[in-house]
């Protein structure tokens, strides 16, 4: 496999390699791409346009009329009606889960990489949680930490913790973070393992001849070589915290107590479905869209710099 040098073309970021053989056809290419375009138009573009439209409107209580309301929905979305805003919760949550899950994943991947025996057994034992549906993971952990009943809750009480995550926001937040790390560490482990397998052995050996200690060798030689994987995982972990954590939160805490575990996605669910405020939900969707767009732009840049040609 050969790594292609990065190249920039006026064609744009994504269409890196298109020269070479191409077919000609008047209608065929359109026919081939049409099903995808149709579904994108109906279930992506139209809803998105609607969300933007609704974000600038206020609907009356009966849902029969809407009028232009300027930026008021956006102002409401950021107003501090709650102790903590959904944006704050989401950002802190994303930072914590990303750091912990990536740290754990990297640590375990290095241990498996360096351990002499049983590599395959350990690998199997460490990746399966990634495949568990979020909602099911939530059910398992709820059973463990249900105040007064769960096995984990009893242990915590024995240790002197006044455990009741239905009352204490910090406990609820910590529980959700721990649960996400339990799931996501496996995902990070999977990718770091693959990344470590691609680090050239001779480079590491050369460093060891230079007399660098094992730890120094890892941080100065191996870790920089892992940077494509690290950056990719950084984006994936943040995306997960922002979006895929909904199931876990809905099963375990329903965003509570108060707003302690209400992320942006959960806030949209509350405002749009439970409170029926389409304007507010629309404005929040637009905010989320912008965040997602920024994250994806970063990811595209990374993906496109490294395309493998076989």
């Amino acid at each position, binding site marked *: 496999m050969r790594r292609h040098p990065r190249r920039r073309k006026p064609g744009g970021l994504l269409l890196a390699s298109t020269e070479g053989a191409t077919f000609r056809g008047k209608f065929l290419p359109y026919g081939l791409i049409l099903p995808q375009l149709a579904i994108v138009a109906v279930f992506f573009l139209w809803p998105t346009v609607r969300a933007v439209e609704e974000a600038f409107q206020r609907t009356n209580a009966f849902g029969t009329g809407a009028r232009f309301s300027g930026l008021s929905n956006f102002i409401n979305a950021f107003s501090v009606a709650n102790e903590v805003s959904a944006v704050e919760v989401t950002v802190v949550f994303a930072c914590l889960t990303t750091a912990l899950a990536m740290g754990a994943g990297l640590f375990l991947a290095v241990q498996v990489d360096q351990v002499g025996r049983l590599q395959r057994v350990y690998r199997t034992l460490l990746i399966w949680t990634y495949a568990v549906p979020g909602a099911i993971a939530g059910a398992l952990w709820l059973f463990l930490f249900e105040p007064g009943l769960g096995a984990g809750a009893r242990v915590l009480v024995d240790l002197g913790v006044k455990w009741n995550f239905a009352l204490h926001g910090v406990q609820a937040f910590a529980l959700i973070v721990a649960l996400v790390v*339990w799931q996501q560490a496996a995902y990070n482990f999977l990718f770091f393992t693959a990344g470590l397998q*691609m680090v050239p052995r001779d480079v590491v050996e050369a460093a060891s001849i230079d007399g660098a200690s094992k730890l120094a060798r890892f941080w100065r030689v191996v870790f920089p070589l892992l940077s494509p994987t690290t950056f990719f995982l950084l984006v994936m972990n943040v995306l997960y915290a922002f979006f895929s954590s909904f199931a876990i939160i809905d099963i375990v805490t329903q965003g509570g107590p108060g707003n302690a575990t209400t992320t942006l996605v959960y806030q949209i669910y509350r405002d749009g479905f439970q409170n029926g405020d389409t304007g507010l939900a629309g404005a929040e969707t637009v905010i989320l869209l912008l965040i997602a767009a920024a994250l994806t732009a970063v990811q595209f840049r990374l993906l496109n710099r490294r395309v493998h040609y076989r």
Partner: protein
Amino acid sequence: MRESGLRQAFRHGALIFASATFALPLYLAFVAATHRAADLLSGVPLLPGGQLGPNLSHVLVRGLPNSAPVTTLMANSAVMALGIAVGKLVISVPAAFAVVFFRFRGRMFAFWLIFITLMLPIEVRFFPTYQVTAQFGLLNSYAGLVLPLVASATATFLFRQFFMTFPVELADAARLDGSGPLRFLWSVVLPLSKTNVAAIFVLEFVYGWNQYLWPLIVTTSQHAATVVMGIQEMISAAQSFAVPQWNLVMAVALLAMVPPVLVVVVMQRWFVKGLTAGIN
């Protein structure tokens, strides 16, 4: 390079500890599913009991109050996951083929239109998408469950990346042979993409099976629910008993996680390869 025994012992210790921590919630769920509900009141027993069969058949055949039998829910999950996996393949292979092997007017525009959707996972756009789906009268239907999730371009993006690795000579040869693009797609591109098609099928099946938010808002009838989202209703039903029926909830949880976990564990080596192909 050989490591000292002490260092190796530390590594094994750390890995065993981590594996055990990962497995503990699963083990306790399994133990709970093998007991009567009342056995769990004074804490989860350490060892499995003999009630696994009766608990499983109870949830599979009768289900919990306010929810359909788990057999129905699992069937819905399977239809949804298969629909998403097959649907994605059917629309993404031709689309990626057109983008890579054709030059046509509006190609860039079409391309961007598709790939912009990569930024919009269903969780970002669920609220307006729900409104549109409701307008079409697709609530509580398989089409409503599947179509909005088929729209995402992940599979198209992966196929495009893969098709771009094809040597130019391949398409040249096909053209010189006088075979048209469709024939080239069918007898050259698809056979060469077998592993990728299978890998993406698996990936999308797991993605579909694990969905929670979308089925939660699109299905209101208990008979249209999927097992992953249905667990929520079951937890509240189980907690409403004088003796919480956690044994039944855990039996459902085990059933719901078997398909995705099995697929990922069985295919792990292949999976690592397929997953990393895109990022390095």
